[in-house]
């Protein structure tokens, strides 16, 4: 798993690629949590390079989504979700929870 972060003017853009399972999910949690802890609650997560996600990774995303949306202060929005990842979101029943955009430009522009 690889993670990059970029602080834009109004949004934090995070890309995660590779494999997010129970072994690597804590690292993703750490990165996203540190953004929230600094008081920034508008996060765009670019999933284009994400090859695999299991419930360990999904739990992190749910937890960060909750933190961002608290008191309507922000959101965690997803971009460029590969088809297999979209299938897993569907299987987990998570698709309706997230705002999902075809690409990063739209996701960032939506804030």
């Amino acid at each position, binding site marked *: 798993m690889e993670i990059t972060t970029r602080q834009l003017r109004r949004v934090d853009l995070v890309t995660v690629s590779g*494999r997010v*399972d*129970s*072994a690597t999910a804590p690292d993703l949690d750490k990165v996203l949590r540190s953004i929230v802890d600094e008081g920034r609650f508008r996060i765009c997560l670019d999933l284009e390079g994400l090859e*695999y996600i*299991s*419930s*360990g990774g*999904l*739990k992190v995303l*749910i*937890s960060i*989504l*909750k933190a961002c*949306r608290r008191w309507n202060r922000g959101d965690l929005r997803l971009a460029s979700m590969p088809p*297999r990842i979209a*299938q*897993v979101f569907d*299987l*987990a*029943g998570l698709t309706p*929870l997230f705002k999902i955009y075809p690409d990063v430009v739209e996701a960032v522009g939506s804030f």
Partner: protein
Amino acid sequence: MKPSISLHIAAELKNLAAICLFVEEVATALGVDPAIIPDVVLAVDEAASNIIIHGYQGQGGAVEIEVGQEGDALVIRLRDEAAPFDPTTVPAPDLTVPLEQRAVGGLGIHLIRQVMDEMAHRVTPQGGNELTLVKRGIGRGGTTDTKDHKGQESETVRKGEQTN
């Protein structure tokens, strides 16, 4: 009946990727429809994650994953020596409740139920657990008899075990 192939590996989270690769390779060798392999891999990952995190509670141990074909079904058995726990008794999460009230637990078991046709648990004679996952309608044409899985340093791979 074709022989099954087993992987013995330390119950550590860092081995999840190796476990997934093993299942993917054996399923491919058995001629399983490539469209359903990712679902099977996900189910085994979730089951193995539960064993490592909840079964052994991070204390370490070993897990054996046996993959075989029975008729048109792919049968995967995960064995461990953790305290007996039957994951089939975990209730399904309520996916209709609002985000704020949604519990994050039980998601892995939910995913296993979603993608597999059968999940069964028994306590082994040694006092550990055996979880059996079954996926039916996997397609035919496998060549498992000539396919060997290359074990990694920390693994012992046994080949040619009977599944029953």
